[in-house]
């Protein structure tokens, strides 16, 4: 009977290649931080179809790499480049604003193949660059203090050709810190994206932040943390150096607060949050009387007789 059932299931659900690609992409995109290569290996083994796998990988890896803000080492030892949508020049080309280079990456191998100098039109004007590089210098100091393995980058995403005060422009600060220790069955990542809009007319800077933290522990089990938070702030436009200092203070303040709130969430777990799922001890505060369950049927009979049972 079982075989019959499986046969009918098979004929009913014969998947098209497109459907297989979609499923494979779903698995790849849902890989925890730092684990897409392991997931890819399993997906490949299950599909047993190189063409389908290659198509799925070609589509899934670029979006995974960008959303996880992965960091790749530049081949000429000039540092690292973050793969982000803000620095995307072309599908495989990512700008590193600090060194004014463009990395050509292999998404599926998660490696940087070569590097070329950025073209003038890929870089912001001297005026915007002054703000960007001041911001970059400050944020680097902060990240090296706060994140043992943090990588950061500052991009200009709007108004990069603005030549002098009087127009709006936008910078984006990206911070990415990842830890992979498969030998300890643990991986994790912290990702922050700060949109910083310089609004000339009102002489103010509007800041929008999004922080995302993930962790995966998988020794004899599978437990994952997925936390995120968004926040907003504003400050006044000042000189490039002063703006950078006050903006980094804002970022430091919000990120420190967020870390504290994460710790509070963890602290609350054992006695409040987790208790709504299952208590440590019964409401009676003693172990369940398995040796004397007859008492329950007695109570139940009485309840039934009095008509107060459920």
């Amino acid at each position, binding site marked *: 009977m*079982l075989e019959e059932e*499986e046969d009918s*299931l098979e004929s009913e*659900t014969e*998947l098209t290649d497109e459907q297989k690609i979609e*499923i494979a992409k779903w*698995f790849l995109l*849902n*890989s925890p931080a730092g*684990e897409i290569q392991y*997931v890819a290996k*399993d*997906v490949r083994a*299950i599909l047993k179809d190189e063409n389908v796998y290659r198509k799925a990988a070609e589509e899934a890896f670029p979006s995974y790499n960008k959303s996880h803000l992965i960091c790749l080492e530049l081949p000429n030892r000039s540092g690292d480049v973050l793969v982000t949508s803000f620095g995307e020049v072309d599908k495989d080309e990512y700008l590193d604003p600090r060194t004014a280079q463009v990395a050509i990456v292999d998404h599926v191998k998660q490696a940087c193949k070569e590097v070329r100098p950025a073209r003038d039109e890929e870089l912001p004007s001297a005026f915007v660059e002054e703000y960007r590089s001041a911001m970059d210098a400050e944020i680097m*100091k902060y990240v090296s203090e*706060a*994140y*043992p393995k*943090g990588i950061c980058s500052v991009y200009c995403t709007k108004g990069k050709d603005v030549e002098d005060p009087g127009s709006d422009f936008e910078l984006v600060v990206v911070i990415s810190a*990842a*830890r992979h220790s498969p030998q300890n069955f*643990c991986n*994790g*990542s*912290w990702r922050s994206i700060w949109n910083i809009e310089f609004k000339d007319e009102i002489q103010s800077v509007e800041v929008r932040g999004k922080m995302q933290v993930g*962790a*995966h*522990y998988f020794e*004899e*089990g*599978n*437990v*994952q*943390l*997925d*936390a*995120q*938070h968004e926040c907003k702030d504003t400050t006044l436009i000042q000189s490039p150096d002063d703006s950078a200092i006050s903006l980094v203070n804002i970022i430091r303040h919000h*990120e420190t607060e*967020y870390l*504290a*709130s994460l*710790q509070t*969430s*963890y602290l*609350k*777990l054992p006695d*409040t*949050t987790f208790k*709504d*799922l*299952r*208590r*440590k001890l*019964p409401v009676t505060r003693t172990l*369940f009387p*398995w040796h004397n*369950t007859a008492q*329950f049927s007695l109570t*139940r009979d009485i309840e039934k007789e009095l008509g107060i049972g459920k």
Partner: protein
Amino acid sequence: MEAAMGLMRRIPPKHTETALSALLSLLPHHSSDLLSQVDQPLQVLCDMEYGKEFILCEYNRDADSYRSPWSNKYHPPLEDAPQPSPELRKLEVEANEVFAIYRDQYYEGGISSVYMWEDENEGFVACFLIKKDGSKSGHGRRGYLQEGAWDAIHVIEVGPEEEGIAQYCLTSTVMLTLTTDNESSGSFNLSGSIRRQMSMKLSVSDGHLCNMGKMIEEMEGKLRNSLDQVYFGKTKEMVCTLRPPAELVTLPDS
């Protein structure tokens, strides 16, 4: 199959259902292996005759119908479907009643079901299931959780009685997800699944139900504790490795 189990260890536990149905469609010829090896969040049906909900699993299923532990009838009705022996059914009824009280004392709500059936070697198998929705809108007494689900599956193989002693092999799985969400701290979700085994040789003088119940209670306590202390603790450690808390870093101005 190995690759499929590999994926299940990595995909976020809150996506287990989607992942399983994806694997079933990719590997139709492994469907029975997948269904028996991958634990998925428990589903519920209502037994209209008793006005009570019961939990669905592979152990009370025949074709597309599920047997209710309350009325002992299949939903939807099914002819010639398997039933436990009258003697075992008696134990099943008692187990359901007692386990519902146990569940209420630890979970302050939720649904439970117990199923039993004879196995080939003169013993029997019992499956104890608990499903709890601990969210604000569900049975969450304290109202902390935006979303909160706990599913526990305990399968006990009871060997034949020999000189007053029986062997009990328990395999327990807990799957859970909990989310808190508020303006000041954003959304915080922990989800997980773990499985453990325990074997014991016990005198049957106290009765099977007493022996099985004690084992389940001990196991649930251990699982809850290791999720809380070890598993959640490890993810917290990871967060503090990524960004050490302020007291561990020298502040620039101090």
